[in-house]
């Protein structure tokens, strides 16, 4: 994987937009099995079931597909960690769990995918389950995504009726049942081990790793947890091959990706483009900044990915590019904010979110997010003190890397990146406020001037 092994000899760049996952979305009743089958649906499943499961794992490894839920872990490698064989952990039942608990602020790609093309996910689930030798698959959908839940359950019903699910699928001897499971409103359940606890009927709190889900996941059995977009990509990889998949994106971040543009942009929406597309290119496709008001800050992949500014318009939005520029690709939830938005206010709102969603299991995150909200709310409401910026950085330092899971780390991202790029805005905001030793004095001050 270190050398360019492109044997087709084509150096041509793909088109600026490459609809693969989104290619059916404009079709009439795109969610029905009729439409799906008419557009090559469930043909990859036949190819897959005729192969050895390990060949599918190798195919996905060769394709370079990386997890689309934010972390970017190589999918084929994750599948290969599932112990196989007649003894030890390999003898236990294996499970596939789909993380459809889309809730990272700004992220809105999986919900349209499940609404518009649920069968691509179902077909991906059958192929993946066959590859990892799972006979039970749960799709954990956040409860608020009610219509997705209906569409998926309908798709599952249709797939059973056609013999794509159930006993002896298409005469292969392979059995699979899928349950579409509704969550109940908790951002933390997007964290894979919290999701597993939730799916087991518990409070959704993360588990200590190791052991990893690959050996000790659902019901302490080997489990693959993958994101919706990841698994919905699998049928196309089987149908097109790894070389085709690699014609899009970059060497280490191959394939197409759904970029979700939201906020102060003329035409917000879902744009599926090769990985490595820049914000400058995406903004051009989306008609530029709304009303021509200049860009101030943006997130490359949800609120847990450190902010970028107008300096970062040409950062290639792939796993390596975003990381090299000091952020993360995350879920490619590109939230765009113009000059009218106050950075301390935006950071306060995000921090209120993390405080609300912190599961309370570990102290740095539970206490840290609580105190960060206290400081930010006080500051935004006119009672900041000159020490606040340093205090917040100090608290973030005590959360980052010291929390149980990535929620705590994510909570520090907006704050530390905002202070990095917009420190003066925080200082100016505080300087413009009346100097108070104690917040409760403020009421007297404002009362006196009225």
């Amino acid at each position, binding site marked *: 994987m270190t050398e360019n092994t492109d044997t087709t000899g084509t150096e041509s760049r793909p*088109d*600026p*937009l*490459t*609809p*693969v996952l989104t*290619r059916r979305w*404009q079709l009439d009743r795109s*969610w029905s099995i009729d439409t799906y089958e008419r557009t090559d649906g469930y*043909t990859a499943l036949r*190819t897959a079931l005729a192969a050895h499961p390990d060949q599918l794992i190798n195919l996905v490894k060769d394709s370079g597909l990386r997890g689309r839920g934010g972390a970017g872990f190589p999918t084929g490698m994750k599948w290969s960690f599932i112990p196989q064989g007649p003894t030890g*952990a390999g003898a236990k039942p294996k499970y596939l769990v789909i993380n459809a608990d889309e*809730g990272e*602020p*700004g992220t*809105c790609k*999986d*919900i349209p995918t499940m*609404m518009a093309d649920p069968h691509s996910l179902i077909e991906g689930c059958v192929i993946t389950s066959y590859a990892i030798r799972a006979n039970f698959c749960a799709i954990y959908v*956040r*409860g*608020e*995504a*009610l*219509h997705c*839940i*209906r569409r998926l*359950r309908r798709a599952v*019903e249709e797939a059973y009726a056609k013999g794509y699910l159930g006993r002896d699928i298409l005469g292969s001897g392979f059995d699979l049942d899928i*349950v579409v499971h*509704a969550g*109940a*409103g908790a*951002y933390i359940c997007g964290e894979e081990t919290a999701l597993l606890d939730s799916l*087991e*009927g*518990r*409070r*959704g709190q993360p*588990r*200590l790793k*190791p*052991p990893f889900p690959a050996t*000790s996941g659902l*019901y*302490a059995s080997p489990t693959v947890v993958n994101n919706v977009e990841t698994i919905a990509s699998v049928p196309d990889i089987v149908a*097109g*091959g790894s070389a085709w998949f690699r014609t899009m994106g970059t060497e280490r971040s191959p394939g*197409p990706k759904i970029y979700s*543009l*939201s*906020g*102060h942009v003329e035409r*917000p*929406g*879902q744009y599926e*483009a090769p990985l490595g597309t820049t914000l400058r290119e995406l903004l051009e496709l*989306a008609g530029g900044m709304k009303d021509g008001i200049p860009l101030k800050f943006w997130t490359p992949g949800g609120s847990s990915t450190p902010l970028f500014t107008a300096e970062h318009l040409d950062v290639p939005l792939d796993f390596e590019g975003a990381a090299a520029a000091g952020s993360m690709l995350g879920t490619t939830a590109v939230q765009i*904010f113009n000059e009218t938005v106050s950075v301390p206010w935006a950071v306060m*709102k995000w921090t209120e979110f993390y405080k609300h969603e912190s599961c309370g299991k570990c102290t740095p995150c539970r206490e840290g997010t609580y105190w960060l909200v206290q400081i930010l709310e006080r500051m935004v409401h006119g009672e900041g003190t000159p020490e606040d910026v340093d205090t917040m950085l100090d608290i973030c330092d005590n959360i980052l890397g010291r929390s149980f899971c990535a929620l705590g780390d994510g909570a520090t991202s907006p704050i530390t990146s905002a202070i990095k790029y917009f420190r003066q805005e925080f200082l100016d905001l505080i300087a413009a406020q009346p100097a108070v030793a104690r917040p409760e004095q403020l009421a007297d001050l404002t009362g006196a001037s009225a």
Partner: protein
Amino acid sequence: MTLPEGNPEMNSREVTGPVEVTWTPVAADGPIVSPSYDEVTRQRAKEIIARYPQSRSALLPMLHLVQSVEGHVSQEGIRFCAELLDLTTAEVSAVATFYTMYKRTPCGEHLVSVCTNTLCAALGGDDIYARLQARLGTEDRPLGHEETAGEPGTPGSITLEHAECLAACDLAPVIQVNYEYFDNQTVESAEELVDALRRGEKPHPTRGAPLTDLRTVELELAGFHPDLAAVAEGPSIAPETVRGAALADERGWQAPARPAEHPALPPLPEKKS
């Protein structure tokens, strides 16, 4: 990463906590569970349990089922789940109190959720929430988070809440009514929406199935759809959803062509050892 089997703390099936104290009821013998949990509901709970390899996985859907019966998670509902899953009421309460969709007090016919996360808020979500609080509150007091305008459960009653990101950011600001999407809202459109709900009307969501009420929707979340093929229809594709796909069509852009036939899969690796 190969570790001793299992994770005793998180995965143990045996509950080793203290034995729950059972008080002798003062009243005569009778069912512990309220009569509101009738045979149909019990049967549904058993169907939910049968879906999973292990029964406790049924707890979240069963709590949705409880809300479909009572409009919130009551103590009786907690006992109902505990009894059927062989859990203590403390274990069920611990779960019910963790998740925001489980409401501890009776809700209105409709639940109106306004996204006030950063992006929606910047585009008007905070203003929408403030206006709805005032509109649904009394003259001297705006309606608070998870409070209900009207008598809970009666037609036209509304429980209001501010919600975290509802994953429709390209359609911001968004509101959900009973978890159906009303996209691209303004202060005015949101006010018209709740006024219509208060009058007993059921405006059609931008995306989703025709509005019913919160209890019907909770039954759906538990896995019981009145007519799945029918409710799975309805609009779901906003112009924003297909902006990229439509632009690609317009410009003649597409993904690189796939091979005509499915390519051969990579060979099996050599057997190790």
